[in-house]
């Protein structure tokens, strides 16, 4: 399972993409967020932390099988 990072989350992680092995991959958006906050405590200080699954906003209840395109969306600031 690969996860894409943008904006400030890319800076926090130090990379635009990380991979989870099959045995360790989170199975829902909620568990993905929990795991990321454990690994990168600075994520908990952000104004918001959204997740996109296949380039659509996904709420915490969405389940993941590892074949999706998953992206971490920090607070947006276009315009």
């Amino acid at each position, binding site marked *: 399972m690969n996860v894409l990072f943008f904006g400030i989350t890319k800076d926090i992680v130090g990379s635009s993409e990380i991979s989870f092995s099959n045995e360790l991959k989170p199975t829902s958006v909620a568990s993905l967020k929990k795991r990321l906050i454990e690994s990168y405590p600075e994520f908990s200080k952000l104004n918001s932390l959204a997740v996109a699954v296949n380039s659509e906003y996904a709420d915490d209840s969405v389940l993941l099988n590892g074949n999706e395109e998953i*992206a971490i969306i920090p607070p947006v600031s276009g315009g």
Partner: protein
Amino acid sequence: MKKVVEIVDVIDTAKVYAELSDANSGGICVFVGAVREFTNNEEVVALEFETYEAMALKEMGKIADTALAKWGLNKVVIRHAVGEKSVKEPVVIVGASSAHRDACFEACRFLIDTLKETVPIWKKEKFKNKSVWVSAHP
């Protein structure tokens, strides 16, 4: 084409009129967002924009479709720039054309306000001695 939705390196503000011009439109309204020199009295050297392009285009498409339906518009343009932009450069342009002016004024406001809320584009303010991701922290 009723809608134009794009992420580009440089915004050409001169071409939007031709894109919005329409035989059924008596009103054309355009908003351009540009780089301002000062934020909270601090001098901005440049803004750096990045995007998750596949998702940004999808979200911009949804905003355009909503506006076309809600205000019965004839044409909509939503275009955002990425990369480094210096003071006075345009970074975003949205526009709508409609039979009468009320619809395109209201639609334009909706286009830019919704873009700022939902489209995955991020802006870093570059000052002389530091850089800050806008809106990241409380």
